[in-house]
C-alpha cells in the first residue's frame, strides 16, 4: 500500500535525504520518498503492518529532524 503524508517544518534538504534513508531501512517498507520541495512523504509498505510501520516512521523522523511534523 502506498500512502502520502504532508510534512510541516521540514527545513533542511539534507535532513530530508537522511529521513528517506532511515525510513527505507525500516522492516516492511518497500519504498519511501521524502520530498523536500513538495514537503511530502510517500511510503510504500506492507499492508498488514502499516500502522506499526508508521509508528516507527514517526520515531525515526523525530530522531533525524525533531522540528518536522508528519500530518496524518
Amino acid at each position, binding site marked *: 500500500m502506498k500512502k502520502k503524508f504532508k510534512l510541516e517544518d521540514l527545513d533542511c534538504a539534507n*535532513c530530508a*535525504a537522511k529521513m528517506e534513508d532511515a525510513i527505507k531501512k525500516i522492516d516492511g517498507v518497500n519504498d519511501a520518498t521524502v520530498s523536500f520541495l513538495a514537503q511530502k512523504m510517500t511510503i510504500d509498505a506492507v499492508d498488514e503492518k502499516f500502522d506499526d510501520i508508521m509508528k516507527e516512521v514517526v520515531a525515526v523522523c523525530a530522531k533525524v529532524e525533531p522540528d518536522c511534523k508528519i500530518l496524518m
Partner: protein
Amino acid sequence: MLYRILITFVLFLALVISEKQNLFGDISDSWYMMIPFLVPYLIIGYDIILKAFRNIKNGQVFDENFLMMIATFAAFGVKDFSEAVVVMLFYQVGELFQSYAVGKSRQSISEMMDICPEYANVEENGELVQVDPDDVEVGTVIVIKPGERIPLDGIVTEGESQIDTAALTGESVPRRASVGDQVVSGCVNGSGILKVRTTKAFEDSTVAKILELVENASSKKAKVENFITRFARYYTPVVTIGAVLLAILPPLLTGGGWAQWIERACIFLVISCPCALVISVPLGFFGGIGAASRIGVLVKGSNYLEAVSEMTTIVMDKTGTLTRGEFKVTKMCPTDCSEERLLEVAALGEGYSNHPIAISIREAYGKKLDMTRVEDATETAGHGICVKVDGKKVLLGNEKLMKQENIHLEPVQTGGSVVYVAEEGKLLGCIVISDTVKDGAAEAIREMKQVGVKKCVMLTGDGKAAAEAVGEELGMDEIHAELLPADKVDWVERLQNQLKDKQKLAFVGDGINDAPVLTRADIGIAMGSMGSDAAIEAADVVLMDDDVRKIASLVKISRKTMTIVRENIVFALGVKFLVLLLGALGAANMWEAVFADVGVSVIAIINAMRALRIKR
C-alpha cells in the same frame, strides 16, 4: 528572526566600536571580554546550540547546527570573540535568505501546479450547490460557469463555450466545445455556461492523474541526483575529519600555534554542509519538469529528463504519431465509369463493414446509403468483400481477391491502400486510401535534427510503399515497414545496441499495440490525448496534445536543465574546495567560509529556479 538579526547586529556594532575606542581598557585582551560578546552570540545562536545538543542526544552528530556550534566555540576558545558572533550572525542571515529562496521556489512550483479544481457546481432542487469534486458521482450533471476550472472529465450536454487548455497542453488557442464534445478537467471555461455530464470520478480524471504523475516525478531520481546524495553522505564526515586533523596534526608536528590551526579547522567545519548541492540539484530538475509541463509535456521523473538530454536516436511509430491515423480517400482511378459511380458502388458494398477503410470510403461518399440495395455481403479477412449491389455481384478488395476471381487488372503503385472495385467480373476502377501526415510532423523532424538528434527512424506495421511515401516526405533516416509489434521491440533493441555510451534512444508511439516498445526504449514517449491509458502508464514522457513538435522543445528544456544542474554542482563544489584549500593554507577567513556554505546555497537555488522559466 529578522529582529534577532537586527538586535544582534546593533549590539555587535556597539561592542566593536567600544573595543576600538579602547573603552574596555585593560580587560580588552583578557577572558572577561567574552562576557559582553556572549550576549549577542546567544541572542543570535541559542536555537542552533539547543538543536545541536538535541540532535546529538538523538544520535545525529554531523548536522549543520553541531558544526556551527563547534566552529564558533572554537573561535571563542582562541579568544576571537567578534569572529564567533559574526560567523553565527552571517550564518543566520544566510539561512534566512535560503529559506526565503526555497519558499519562493516552492510557491512558483505550486502556482504552476495550480490546476487542481476546488469545487464542482451541482444542481440540487433547482439551486446550484458547490461540492467537493471528490464527491461527485460519475454521470452527474455539473454546471461550469464562465471563467471556472472544469473539475471533472465529461461530455457537454448543454451550452457552448471556448475552453482554455493552456494549463494542460500549453496551447494558447482556445478550443471550442459544444453539445456532445468531450471536455477535460483542469482546463478553464471561457465565456459560455456549460452543462457537463461527468464520465469519470475525480480520482480517475485527467487532472488528478496529471497531479499524481508530477508529484511522483521527484521519486524517480536522475543519476546526477543519486550521485549528489551519495556524495553528501561522504562529504560531511570527510571534511569534519579533515578539520580535526588540521587542528591537531600541524601543531603537534611543527609545535606551537594551536590557535591558528584551530581557526583554520573551524573554516573546514563551516563548509562541511553539502546543503547547496542537496537542495539545488533536485530543485533544478523539478524546475525543468515544471517547464516541460507548462508546454504540455509530462515527464515522469528527473531520470527521464536527464535521458532526454542525451537522446541521439528517435524511433517513431507511423500511424497516429507521424500521421493522423485517419484514413482518407486520396485518389480515385475509374477505368470504365464515372468517379461518382465508382464511389457509390464502393460505399454501398462497404456499407456493413467496420473496417477503417470502409468507414473512410463511406465518409468520402458522404450521402445517405440506401442499404436495401445491398445483400449477401461476405467479408474475407486479408482479401476484401464480396457482395450483391442492385442484384449485381460486386467485389471490393485487394489484388489477391481480384486474382482469385480472375479479374484482370493493372496494379497501381501508390503510397496508400488500394481497393479495387469490380462489378459482374469487370473492373470498375480502384480507390486509393491513405493516412494523412500530421500538420507539423515534417517540422518536428527538422527541429529534432537541429537540436542534435542524429537518427530518426520510422517503424510501422504498414506496407512498404505507404511507409516509404510518408518517410520520404518527412525526411526520416531509416524506414522499416511491415513489422509486427514484436518486430518493433527487436528493432529498438538492435538500434540500442548501435548506440555508444551516454547516447539514448527514444520511442514515440500512440500506444496502440506498442506498450512493450515504450517500456523497452530508454525513453518512451506516448501521445496523451489519443493514446490509451495503458500507453500513458507505460510511457516515461507524455505529450498531452499529441504534438510531436514538442519533442524538440523538450530536448531543449532538458539540455538547459542539465546545464543549470551542472553549473550548480561545479560552482558549489568549486567554491567549497577553493575555500577549503585557502582555509588550510590560512588565506581564508570565517566570512568566506560562511559564504561558501550558505551564500553558495542561495546562489545555487536562484540559479536552479531558472530551469522553471525556460521558454520553449
